[in-house]
């Protein structure tokens, strides 16, 4: 799980840049089944069909991550960028970033307003217009850097104490790692036809998920995403426990029967789990998949993480491993 997560975290795949990672996706998923790509950038991998007539189960996570994109280069040579998805403004000042240009990576630092210049104390950079210092003149910057070039927040993949790791884009690299792991566990599955979907553009509206559901027309879908884990300053009712096991989602859009199957399986298999209750939308691709086509019975299982949408998202590897196990056991046990 650690290696798999690290592999996904190492791909600087900001929303809209998914097609650039087709070669890596093919290499990673080809051992599992037949790999194909949708125009949206979504990657599909169909596991071999064991016998006709099996229910089609979509194992879904999103491939994209939040980031920034180049909008303008100023006369002084600063790169002005606009957020792609929900970038955390509290983490931007003086943050290291990488601009992914057609000629390669360009390092940068997000400008931090010197204290004597701040309009008010503690003013944060605005995600709609983030100035980045790349140490270049305007002329050199314009030559090397293009409009729309995607920008990632720098941060290494760092093992912390215990089984926890910190990395950028654990949301939703952990989901990608979980569905790939679950598919590996289901390689011999004779109760379902498994299709893995690593979807594009979740952070900007879910176009990759809708098109995946349309293309596959699954009978069931299990969406896997990252969810909020508790911190001392969070509302206890809105967060899960880090290390508390997979969070099984309950929400109007989610299929109650599938959710219950997940809970039953967790109990049978002694897999720790927690319930995540969402009264409105889930804020995940599940919202887009469930109503796709003629409707898809959809469940959502999430891995708790801290510091979502920063360059140091923290997750427990055991939670991720248990999530993959829960999915494999639930699907392997047969769905109705």
């Amino acid at each position, binding site marked *: 799980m650690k290696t798999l997560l690290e592999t996904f975290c190492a791909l600087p795949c900001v929303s809209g840049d998914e097609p650039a990672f087709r070669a890596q996706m093919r290499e990673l998923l080809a051992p599992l089944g037949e790999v194909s790509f949708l125009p949206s950038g979504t990657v599909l991998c169909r596991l071999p069909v064991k016998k006709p007539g099996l229910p089609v189960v979509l194992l879904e996570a999103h491939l994209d991550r939040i980031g920034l994109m180049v909008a303008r280069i100023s006369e*002084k040579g*600063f790169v*002005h960028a606009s957020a792609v998805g*929900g970038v*955390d*403004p*509290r*983490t931007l*000042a*003086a*943050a*290291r970033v990488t601009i992914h240009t057609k000629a390669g990576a360009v*390092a940068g*630092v997000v*400008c*931090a*307003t*010197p*204290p*004597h*210049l701040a309009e*008010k*104390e*503690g*003013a*944060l950079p605005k995600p709609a217009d983030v*100035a980045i*210092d*790349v*140490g*270049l*003149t305007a002329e*050199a910057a314009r030559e090397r850097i293009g409009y729309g070039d995607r920008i990632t*927040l720098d*941060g*290494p993949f*760092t093992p*912390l*104490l*215990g089984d926890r*790791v*910190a990395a950028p884009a654990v949301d939703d690299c952990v989901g990608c790692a979980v569905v790939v792991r679950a598919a590996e566990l289901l390689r011999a599955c004779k109760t379902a036809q498994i299709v893995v979907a690593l979807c594009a553009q979740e952070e900007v509206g879910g176009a990759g998920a809708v098109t995946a559901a349309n293309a596959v027309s699954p009978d069931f879908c299990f969406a896997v995403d990252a969810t*909020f884990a*508790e*911190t*001392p*300053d*969070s*509302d206890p009712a*809105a967060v899960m426990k880090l*290390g508390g096991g997979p969070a099984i989602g309950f929400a109007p859009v989610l299929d109650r029967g599938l959710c219950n199957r997940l809970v039953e399986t967790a109990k049978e298999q002694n897999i720790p789990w927690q319930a995540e209750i969402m009264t409105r939308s889930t*804020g995940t691709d599940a919202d887009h998949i469930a109503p796709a086509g003629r409707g898809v019975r959809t469940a959502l299982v999430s891995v708790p993480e*801290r*510091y*979502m*949408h*920063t*360059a*140091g998202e*923290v997750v427990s590897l055991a939670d991720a491993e248990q999530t993959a196990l829960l999915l494999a056991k639930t699907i392997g046990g047969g769905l109705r």
Partner: protein
Amino acid sequence: MRDLVKRLCEARGISGDESAVRAVIERELAGVCPLRTDPLGNLIAEKAGRPANKTLVFFAHMDEVGALVTRIGDDGLLRFSPIGIDAAVLGGRRVRVGRENLPGVIGAKALHHLKKDEEETAPKAEALFIDIGAADRAEAGQHVAPGDAVTFDDPYLGELGDGFVCSRALDNRLGCAQLIELLRSDCPFAFTGVFTCGEESSLFGATAAANATAPEIAVVLETTTAGDVDGAPADKVVCALGKGPVVSFADRGTLFDRELFALAFDTAKQNNIPVQTKEGVFGSNEGRVVGRAGSGAQVCAVSVPCRYLHSASVVAKWSDIEDSARLIRALAQRFAAL
């Protein structure tokens, strides 16, 4: 110079915990000149040579901005108190904690749970915490204790764009590098170089070192904030990268000696070295204490202009660093002859 700056930046040392930095400097100056460490941890170097007319002492502080662990929570998260860091640059940063240099992340609740006003203002340091992955207080306590040092963890980047360097702790390892180069130089005059402790807290190191060395001319080798970023009005730029060393006439702590200030500009002109001043009275440094020892000293400050000064990603320009070294070498001779 570049390798020296890298070696100095790779050592970690917040105020009151400078021993690792001192060890690097001791290695750099081994065999160059006699060194001694005073009771507070200042490293004092005596350059041999012809006696200067006035006692000439250069100061460069070794410490960097950082934080101290104040408390370990039941949840295994560490509370901390910053030393010298602006809270706006803390959120989301990777850090190293304690003697084991344990990796950690500065965290807070998720963006998605913020109220509107919380999205526009940086959280205060008291509202943040460091996550080292510990599941509870007992696990954290095996590795970390209150009082342990916290430093930023962003890597040293020797080449940012065309001719820039980006690192934590450039404030003030650049000043240390300047002083090391000066002590290694062929300057014919005797002078004292002090690598000080505690500038980012209360200037305690420089205060005691000035008492011990009794300068008549005190020169502070430092870094200073440049406001040459997009959106800054001309009257707030103060100084800019690429325009050479910054010689101050005043800051919020010191009225620098006018004779030395004029001499610095004259020396730069004679030697064709670009030079600038701080156009505005902002910030302060050890100048405020090194002129007050004994019967006092004339004080001068030469700084390398830096962007994002008290953050994990300070940016400076190599040409400014090299021009500063040239100016400081030339100034040492002029000051010694005063």
